[in-house]
């Protein structure tokens, strides 16, 4: 069999290739550069991400319309939906790398090695967002996970970090088995791993051997759906597959936590959407019940458990679980607004969640116990910028207008209402109210408590200052200017079957 690749095929993988190339360059840097290694490596990674962003934006401009510009034998696609998530992924990668250097220096990390692993993970995530085939989805999930296992255990001198990496590896492998089993069953029932072909088989367009009804009601398909849902849910830290999340988030080096808290979800959700809303979209009544229950449990457990945390990273881990629940609400709506809401959510989430980790990171880089929420007492007096920015992130995470966090949540719940599932929106709003209990606690500590005598001023450094200012500005701009939302609307044109 000969593989014939066109220019369009190369174009579809170009952003991913750029990131991979950048990662290899970083490894070379590691071998040759000895002075100012952190600065040079940071510069190379940011330049790589910028270049990949340009390539992705070019693909966006070229691939308008609802058709699938298919690359590499319909294994992956360069459609706008994938590009939109590429923007979110590149953004979260860049934001995490912008705040990483002080931490890299204090922990004596090998900058080239560390950052190249982040880029490898990013490449795997981008591949996942672009995949149009179950095999590629599995492949990319392993690619990104491998890099993340190593990153989680990167701090060799800290047992907590080692524990995090090992736990993540063990549990993730366990969950991956469910995923691949589910994929195998779907392949067995439909005869294809290609999502478009699965649509055709299940939708009865392809004139297949088995009639649609028999295929759909076959236990293979149903158990396949169930097992794939389990596999995806693990990666998204959906309850009850979430238990690794707080431990790994807390143990992993903080820049890794910041990165994976957003990027993993921004990579898995598009694949989840492509499989469930596109390939199995017409059969939503067969999976809706599962996602409905998972979303409700996730929103409640995530928000309630976050209340009693004294560690900021664990708090944000549970907050991340809760937010996965909100996004799941949007996804389970299985309509155009829902897919748009999912896409829009991650642009917003990148700004507010990575920004929230910046506070932990800045304090930890100074050798303080930045993970302990109690250390934020009177932070406003020590660093007005850091305190105000974190305050904005907390308000945005809690969903206060006019920050973008409000609109992200609003569209997610509006999708559920449009799909006729008001109960999901109601539970979402109630649990959001509960979330105020922990988000505002941080704000109260920072602004309304006196600073301890003798506490030093905190200077975050120019790159972190830039990142914080840009994230705060981003949250207001995305909230007030509808351009970004319209972009997300264009991105979901790939889901051509949506009527509403």
């Amino acid at each position: 069999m000969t593989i014939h690749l066109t220019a369009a095929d190369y174009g579809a993988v170009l952003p991913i290739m750029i990131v991979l190339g950048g990662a290899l360059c970083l490894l070379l840097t590691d071998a040759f550069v000895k002075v100012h290694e952190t600065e040079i490596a940071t510069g190379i990674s940011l330049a790589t991400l910028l270049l990949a962003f340009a390539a992705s934006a070019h693909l966006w401009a070229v691939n308008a319309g609802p058709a699938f510009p298919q690359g590499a034998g319909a294994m992956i696609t360069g459609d706008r939906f994938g590009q939109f998530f590429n923007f979110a992924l590149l953004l979260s990668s860049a934001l995490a790398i912008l705040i990483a250097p002080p931490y890299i220096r204090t922990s004596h990390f090998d900058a080239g090695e560390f950052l190249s692993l982040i880029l490898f993970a990013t490449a795997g995530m981008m591949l996942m967002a672009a995949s149009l085939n179950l095999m590629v989805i599995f492949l990319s999930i392993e690619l990104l996970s491998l890099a993340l296992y190593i990153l989680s255990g990167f701090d060799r001198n800290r047992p907590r970090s080692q524990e995090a990496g090992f736990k993540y590896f063990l549990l993730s492998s366990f969950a991956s088995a469910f995923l691949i089993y589910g994929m195998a069953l779907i392949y067995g029932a439909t005869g294809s791993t290609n999502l478009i072909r699965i649509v055709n088989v299940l939708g009865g367009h392809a004139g297949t051997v088995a009639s649609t009804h028999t295929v759909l009601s076959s236990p293979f398909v149903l158990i396949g759906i169930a097992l794939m849902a389990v596999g995806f849910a693990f990666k998204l830290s959906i309850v009850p597959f979430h238990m690794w999340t707080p431990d790994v988030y807390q143990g992993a080096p903080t820049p890794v936590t910041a990165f994976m808290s957003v990027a993993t979800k921004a990579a898995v959700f598009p694949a989840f959407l492509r499989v469930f809303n596109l390939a199995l979209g017409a059969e939503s009544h067969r999976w809706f019940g599962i996602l409905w229950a998972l979303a409700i449990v996730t929103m409640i457990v995530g928000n309630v458990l976050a209340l009693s945390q004294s560690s900021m990273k664990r708090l944000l881990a549970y907050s991340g679980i809760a937010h996965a629940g909100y996004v799941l609400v949007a996804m389970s709506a299985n309509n155009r607004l829902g897919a748009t809401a999912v896409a829009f959510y991650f642009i917003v989430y990148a700004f507010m969640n990575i920004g929230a980790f910046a506070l932990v990171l800045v304090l930890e880089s100074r050798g303080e116990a930045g993970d302990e929420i109690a250390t934020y007492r009177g932070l406003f007096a020590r660093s007005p910028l850091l305190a105000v920015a974190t305050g904005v992130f907390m308000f945005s995470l809690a969903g206060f207008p006019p920050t973008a966090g409000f609109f992200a949540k609003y569209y997610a719940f509006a999708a559920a209402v449009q799909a006729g599932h008001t109960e999901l929106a109601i539970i979402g709003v109630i649990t959001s109210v509960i979330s105020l209990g922990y988000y505002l606690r941080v704000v109260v500590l920072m602004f309304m408590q006196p600073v301890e005598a003798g506490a030093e001023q905190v200077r975050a450094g120019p790159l972190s200052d830039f990142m914080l200012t840009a994230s705060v500005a981003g949250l207001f701009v995305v909230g007030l200017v509808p351009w970004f939302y319209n972009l997300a609307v264009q991105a979901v044109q790939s889901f051509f079957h949506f009527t509403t």
Partner: protein
Amino acid sequence: MSSVWFILLLPLFGFLVLSVGSPLPKRAVAVLGPGVVGVAFTAAIVMFFWDYGRHGVTRDAVAYTWIVSGHFVVNFGALIDPLATVMCLIVTGVGFLILLYSVGYMSEDVDFRRFFCYMDLFVFAMLVLVLSDSYLFLLVGWAGVGLTSYLLIGFWYERPAAVAAARQALVVNVIGDWGMMVALFILFLHFHTLQYVPIFKHVPAVLGYDGSTVRIVTLLLLVGAVAKSAQLPLHVWLPNAMEGPTPVSALIHAATMVTAGVYLIARSYPLFHSAPFTQSVVIIIGTCGAFFAATCALANNDIKRVLAYSTMSQIAYMFVGVGAASYASGIFHLTTHAYFKACLFMGAGAVMHALHDNVDIRRMGGLKATMPVTFWCFLIATMAISGVPLLSGFFSKDEIVGSVYLQAQHVGWLWIIWIMLALTAGLTALYMFRLLFMVFLGQERDPELALHAHDPPLVMRLPMMILAVLAVIGGYLAFPGAPNWIGNWLRHSFERFSPVAPAEPATQWASVIIVILTVALGIFAAYRIYYQRRPAPEQVGATAPAIYRLFLNRWYVDGLYDRAVVRPIIVLGLFLSTVVERFVINGLVEGSAAALRDSSRDMRRVQSGYVRNYALSILLGAVLVVGYYVFRR
């Protein structure tokens, strides 16, 4: 891009820069604070000529749609028409002059930057209010000016009186905001939009003429207008608002914000036009307020509070103007009032500066010799507000009184209104000249206090002089007998929707002559009493003790409110906070919060840290998910 966005965004930019610019030197603040408003004024002039060049065509400039949720659509848009343009020119133009004046007035204050920060925010909020193309953003601006008014009244937050006054202003304004909001809810219910144009186009079709809904909506809007414009019965906050710095009183509590109620009624004219009942209420409230405030001003001895009551009285005239469907005359009086009242407040500020912040006019006198420029400006503005012929206030006030006179030919009870308005015109002359004579003429009563009295520096003198000039020539926009230029121009705003507002009436010479006579009588009385005899205030009171005490105590309204409203509410509040709050609310809120915290703590125990437990949880989850299919079948 339309120049309107520059007008809007420049003050916002100034506010944002000043709010974070703690390292900015004072000089930079002094340039930036007034500068942005000055540039915005230039942009407003550009917009003015642009629109006037196109024959006062109205247009809607929509920047973009922000939110779409069912029927509920939120645009960032501006409605540019003669009404909005006039308001815009006043807010930025007079605002610029007052900010310039503030550079001198506030130069000694430690919170120089904070002052200009708030002032720029106020100008922005006021511009949002007048430029908005929907009731929604009108409300945003409405609340914004309320907030900045609160912040600026309480600018000297270490003075308990200032804080109390700020709180009072906020509370009274919230009553108005409540009325506004309910009105907007009802409007949205009937029109499915809050945009002006679709509402105004369909008022007669949807709400009918003189129906109960349109009555309720307009009355609720009137509650908002009355609170914001300090009219009866929600006027009590305005005199106390004089605790703020004098430029604030000039800009917010005289020239612009307090006239927002007049703007609201003029803007909503298709609604008010369909509700003749409410129009009558507006006229009655206005007339009673004009008379009431004039009597209060007559007895008051605080230079700024006299001006505050006079502001209330003049706005009451504007209410009568827009209530009598003579919208252009109301807006015309709003314009001229902005000039002379801002000038009067600047004069008062200059006097206070010279006399170490003393505001008691019984300790003043003879300042003409030491402060000639201030005296002449104050004199011109006093003549203008009193309605001395050929100055601006004469033209604008006579238009309002004249239109009532004209309508009284058909509606009998309006004669009472007309008589009261003419009488109040005389009272206005009396209290204003009383103020002038007591402050600037005669012997100085407290020589020690006035020892170092002098005219203010140029940066304060210049805006005062410009406004004095405007107070003279501002009236020629509508010279009696000549084409009513401003009226004709504003008509473009008031002819756009059905029902069309009636044309501005021709000058009513009979009314004009009678008003001139009462004004002359008022000035003469002031001259006899306060210039020739110069009695001690106690002596004035002695001739008519009961009525003097009535006026001095502001008709006992404040005391009545205190007993009938404030104290019962405080008692109720105490009851709620001690009994209901502690046992009911806290029980519910803290109970549920505690329950959540406890369940959170219990659920945490599951998080054991062992991989085997975590894997078990995943397995159980998988079994449940698969089981869902098994048992569903």
